[in-house]
């Protein structure tokens, strides 16, 4: 009998295609950045040529936000990285790197704390319908409270506990546990009926079903949550640094440079760029781990 003659349904694309795909992604992202730059500088040039006013249908609008004092040239922002942040101090980029790494470290700690708590909550909710009904509304409610209102309290409490360094990771964790809980819960409970029945025919235990079916089934969704959490943990860390009075992070840099915005707008923009890069770096690291862990074919890509 001739077996093995059937061809795989959809063979893995050959490697040159993958390289072309990656090249195309790179090309498109460069194009987008260039377009945004063009829009930025074009807007400034247009506003300057029209004396910072625009008349549409007889109404004149003030567009002075495009002037150099409000919206610096991209070249000025780029130059700001190399200039001293303070008089006779180190160049801004050096300061931003050390501040960025400081904040990133707090964000990573918060990400881990939030991830673990979020995961445990999801396990509890998946296991007990009662717990899910009783507790999930409060978990949702926790995210509607502005983090800015909670951050100072956490700082005060952690200060009393003599552990003020932990305040920033905890504030970051407050933002990161939620997506992990929601996505993991969905992944654990959205198991195909027959996949579950298969386990029943083996008389598998709850633990075996969890480890061999529910968790692997949830992994793609868990990684979706972790990617969201990675970026929001950076935001959480920056917000957490403000009431903590921590002097080494990006939070204080943003606070200072916005205070002196009128003297030198490019420095705040440069800091924003740095914060964005930190978030992207963290996101990319999680995405890389995802690619290493999930080697199978996932139909619904988030």
């Amino acid at each position: 009998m001739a077996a093995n003659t059937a061809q795989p349904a959809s063979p893995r694309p050959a490697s040159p295609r993958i390289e072309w795909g990656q090249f195309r992604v790179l090309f498109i992202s460069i194009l987008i950045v260039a377009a945004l730059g063009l829009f930025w500088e074009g807007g400034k040039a247009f506003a300057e040529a029209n004396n910072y006013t625009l008349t549409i249908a007889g109404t004149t609008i003030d567009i002075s936000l495009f002037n150099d004092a409000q919206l610096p040239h991209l070249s000025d922002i780029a130059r700001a990285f190399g200039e001293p942040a303070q008089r006779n101090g180190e160049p801004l980029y050096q300061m931003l790197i050390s501040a960025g790494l400081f904040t990133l470290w707090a964000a990573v700690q918060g990400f881990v704390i939030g991830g673990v708590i979020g995961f445990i909550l999801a396990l509890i909710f998946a296991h007990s319908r009662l717990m899910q009904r009783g507790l999930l509304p409060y978990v949702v409610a926790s995210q509607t409270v502005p983090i800015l209102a909670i951050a100072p309290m956490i700082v005060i409490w952690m200060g009393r506990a003599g552990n003020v360094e932990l305040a920033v990771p905890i504030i970051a964790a407050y933002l990161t546990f939620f997506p992990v809980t929601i996505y993991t819960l969905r992944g654990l409970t959205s198991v195909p009926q027959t996949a579950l029945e298969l386990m029943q025919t083996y008389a598998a235990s709850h633990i075996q079903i969890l480890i061999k079916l529910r968790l692997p089934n949830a992994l793609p969704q868990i990684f979706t949550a972790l990617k969201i959490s990675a970026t929001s943990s950076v935001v959480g860390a920056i917000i957490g640094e403000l009431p903590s009075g921590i002097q080494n992070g990006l939070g204080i840099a943003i606070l200072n440079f916005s205070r002196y915005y009128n003297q030198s707008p490019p420095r705040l923009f440069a800091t924003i760029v740095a914060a964005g890069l930190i978030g992207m770096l963290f996101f990319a690291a999680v995405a890389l781990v995802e690619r290493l862990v999930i080697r199978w074919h996932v139909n619904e890509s988030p």
Partner: protein
Amino acid sequence: MSTKARRKQATVTTIISLKNVSKTFRIKDGTNVHALDDINLDVKEGEFVSLIGPSGCGKSTLLRLIADLVQPTSGTVTVNGKSAAQARKTRDSGFVFQNATLYDWRTVLKNVELPLEIMNFPREERDRRAREMLELVELKGFENKYPWQLSGGMQQRVSIARALAFKPRILLMDEPFGALDEMTRERMNNELLSIWTEFHEMSVMFVTHSIAEAVYLSTKVVVLSPRPGRIAEVIDIHLPQPRGPETRDHDDYFHLTSQVRHALRGHMAQHGFDE
């Protein structure tokens, strides 16, 4: 001992027994669906029994009752001398679903190893048996592929290998080849027959829509009537063993096929069935 003699000798012990089994499902809007009514059926060890009937006659439900995936509303299901629930705990039967139900994150080999992992077989034993089963379903060389890389027929073969890996006494198959094209289906039928020959005394219960398939494979065909499912007729298939392409040319093959068809049609006419 020839296959024929072995089969004859094997038809002594009753492996599956259903006594006055009825099943009523209560669906969401509160109405009751009467799926099976007063089913009495004995399956002897080593038999290959096909369940055939129009859609919705409860033939899948019958199989799921034996697997203890659903429980009867009344009556008793005895599997290998135990209640269906006990038999599930002692893993007396392997189940093959209509869709292969492979786990996406496991390779072909690891999918076949799944039941052995659940049953705590040692690592080498798992590996050895899984490879042996894959060879049996002619998928040697595909051990490290992922399910999405296989065709539908190959996926179903993996799921059969998985069901056989722990050597259950009973194989329950719920329209396993229903989604396959005719050519692949015929090949799978032959493969299944040779597996059944290889597994001494394994009993098979096979749900199908296809009259030809039922007659070709089975030692006994159970024809079910439309809802509520009742046993309309039990037809013994006395075609010579082992079966092969020549079976379809046997005089009795045509006779038996039309007998099954008449049994089905009689009940469809009676109940005004629309298939």
